[in-house]
């Protein structure tokens, strides 16, 4: 009888336990990401850090942010495997880098580049109260003329 219980229930119990700890770990990562993107106007999840990006796509996003002089929070996914996978699940987006504005996923490198080229990025930043340096430069040019 004892062995029956052991064979029958114990593995089941074990698996449920494993599943639930996994579930809580995922939830904790999700919660952490949630806090980060909601507490900062602009967040970039990238490979490496802004001063030393470790991927061409991440570097492109950093350069765009620099051009617009956007203050942003950055997270290096290479230093945290949980965040690296967690952010993909969170935004349902398969690649890094990922940019969030006002808690919302905006896009990866391609989208940022196209938004930069179309002028849409300046508008999006304006909505959250960030004035792009490109806009400031344009205005001072007009004033000078």
């Amino acid at each position, binding site marked *: 009888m004892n062995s029956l219980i052991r064979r029958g229930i114990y593995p089941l119990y074990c698996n449920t336990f494993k599943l639930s700890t996994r579930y809580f770990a995922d939830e904790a990562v999700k919660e952490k990401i949630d806090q980060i993107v909601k507490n900062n106007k602009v967040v970039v999840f990238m490979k490496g850090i802004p001063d030393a990006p470790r991927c061409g796509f991440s570097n492109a996003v950093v350069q765009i942010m620099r051009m617009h002089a956007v203050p942003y929070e950055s997270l290096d996914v290479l230093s945290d495997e949980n965040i690296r996978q967690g952010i993909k699940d969170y935004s349902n987006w398969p690649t890094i880098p990922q940019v969030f504005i006002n808690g919302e996923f905006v*896009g990866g490198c391609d989208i940022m580049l*196209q938004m930069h080229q179309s002028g849409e990025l300046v508008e999006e930043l304006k909505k959250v109260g960030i004035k792009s340096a490109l806009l400031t430069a344009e205005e001072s040019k007009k004033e000078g003329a």
Partner: protein
Amino acid sequence: MSHCYNEVIDDSDGCGAKFSVLVVSDKFLGKPLLARHKLVNSVLQEELKTIHAFSQKTLTVEQWKK
């Protein structure tokens, strides 16, 4: 996904993990960029698991003709 044109460029030097695609489809009509990219991602969900770098351009037929 029904589309009228696409182009895939393998940027990976043969390792098969780095691609750029151009997708032209009228399914993109009225969809913002993010929604277009998400549509392509969802179609390639399985493939993307093994792709490391993926870059896309998504145009409607009209945009493409320009």
